[in-house]
């Protein structure tokens, strides 16, 4: 740790523990440093969720505003769009539940989150040196995670309430009016959160490979998630990793 402190004396070096690592996080040393960030199953889980969310946004927006009704053409017309949307929602709900179980522990609030959030201006300017050292997820990523979690629960509950085909008797008509209003507002919110998520992944160069190949470079981890890299440098991996959990 003292060595690291020499290279970066402006910020205090946070204490790290194995708890800062996920199962499957692993340091690979070659000519360059590479870090395994997401396991294969986490990535499959993520992309099922992502595809579901995009299909839900397309089918949902088609019924949200008349100017977007043409989107039903992508799904073979209005009747099929109406039929498939709730089923994709069911897929998303269970798929996201998988992501929640995988990711929630390191998305719990940490001390540095408040400081990171207070310096959101420096975040947006890319002034990483003015930010505290961050674990596997920064406060922005945690916001996306928890916003998605809350909104998906809101959407599935309100969505079931207005699922005409099977649950038309579940709620009274006044309740269904509220449900459909809540559903549309939550949908707008989750699309905005999704835009933030996708934009951040593009903006921060080197991030996408975490969800495509499961790997990021050591430089990326040093720049954006130094506390996480320090934990990897200290322990290499979580002890409870079994050979079967490779990648």
């Amino acid at each position, binding site marked *: 740790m003292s060595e690291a402190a020499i290279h970066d004396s402006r910020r205090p070096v946070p204490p790290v523990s194995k708890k800062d690592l996920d199962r499957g996080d692993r340091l690979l040393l070659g000519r360059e440093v590479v870090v395994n960030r997401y396991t294969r199953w986490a990535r499959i889980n993520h992309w099922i969720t992502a595809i579901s969310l995009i299909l839900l946004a397309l089918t949902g927006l088609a019924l949200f505003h008349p100017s977007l009704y043409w989107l*039903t053409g992508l799904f073979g017309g209005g009747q099929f769009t109406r*039929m498939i949307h709730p089923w994709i929602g069911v897929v998303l709900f269970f798929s996201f539940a998988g992501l929640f179980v995988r990711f929630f522990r390191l998305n719990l609030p940490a001390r540095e989150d408040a400081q990171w959030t207070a310096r959101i201006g420096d975040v947006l300017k890319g002034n990483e040196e003015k930010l505290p050292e961050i674990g596997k997820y920064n406060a922005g990523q945690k916001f996306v995670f928890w916003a998605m979690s809350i909104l998906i629960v809101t959407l599935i509950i309100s969505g079931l309430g207005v699922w*005409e085909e099977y649950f038309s008797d579940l709620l009274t008509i006044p309740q269904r009016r509220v449900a459909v209003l809540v559903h549309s507002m939550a949908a707008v919110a989750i699309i905005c959160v999704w*835009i933030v998520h996708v934009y951040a992944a593009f903006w*921060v160069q080197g991030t996408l490979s975490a969800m495509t190949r499961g790997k990021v470079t*050591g430089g990326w981890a040093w720049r954006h998630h130094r506390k996480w890299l320090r934990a990897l440098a200290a322990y290499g991996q979580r002890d409870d990793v079994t050979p079967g959990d490779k990648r």
Partner: protein
Amino acid sequence: MTINVNPPVAADTQQQMGPQDYIRRSASTVPEPARKLEAVAKLIDVSKCIGCKACQSACLEWNDLREEVGVNVGVYDNPHDLTPNTLTLMRFTEWVNDENGNLEWLIRKDGCMHCSDPGCLKACPAPGAIVQYSNGVVDFVKENCIGCGYCVQGCPFNIPRISKVDNRAYKCTLCSDRIAVGQGPACAKACPTKAIVFGTKEEMKAHAANRIEDLKSRGFANAGLYDPPGVGGTHVMYVLHHADKPTIYAGLPDNPRISPVVEAWKGVTKYAGLALMGVAAAAGVVHMAISGRNRVTVEDDDEARRLTAQAPGAQPLDPDKEPMA
């Protein structure tokens, strides 16, 4: 058009109303129609209704619909509710008049009210699935219906029903196909007491005024016309002997209007929602243009190498999987 006249339809009869007479079309706009049809209305005089259900039968017959054989639960309502096949339904209420202790048997023919400001049409997301003609008829065009049930949420009268068979919405059409060739609705034709009459809205209001005067002379001081202003008036109106409390007639709403929740959903949410998503996307474009991508530097890579050089538990990297420099 006059009250309850059903002239024979000649072979060369022309359609008197059509898509050119649309004044509203769901989830889309229509050009201003070149002509304006005279407003029509069906007037249902509850005080003259004997509950024979001839109107229900006529509706089934004209629209070629069949209702399932139901179960008697001890009330006259049959079936128990509006269905995709039962577009009109006699609703029976036994009501004790507190003023004189009389038991009154209130019978109301329920069905679409053909609102001037139709909540179903406002809520509908499918272009052209619900249309309104300049004479006031609100009609469902089933070819365009997607079965979402939004019209059910939009309607202040709980009228539309979604078929489990073809997943499309159904309700009274005011016999738009009969009106188009100069006929009155089938229910009005069948009514043996002329409790249901059909004509221009002005005629129907005048007719109602006579009926209300008559009812008042018979001791129904609160007799009146039900033409609720909250939905801009309706093209199906009732003469009620207790117009001061419509709700006693099997829950006829006292002051129906499109729910503010539906207004919020189809108003500000729809436009603000699109705007918000647009702003979020635009903010990304602007931020990228101003700040450029947040790139990892060579120094970052060097620092990472230095930090991890002695890391325990690290594994060697397959040389084929070295990241591009």
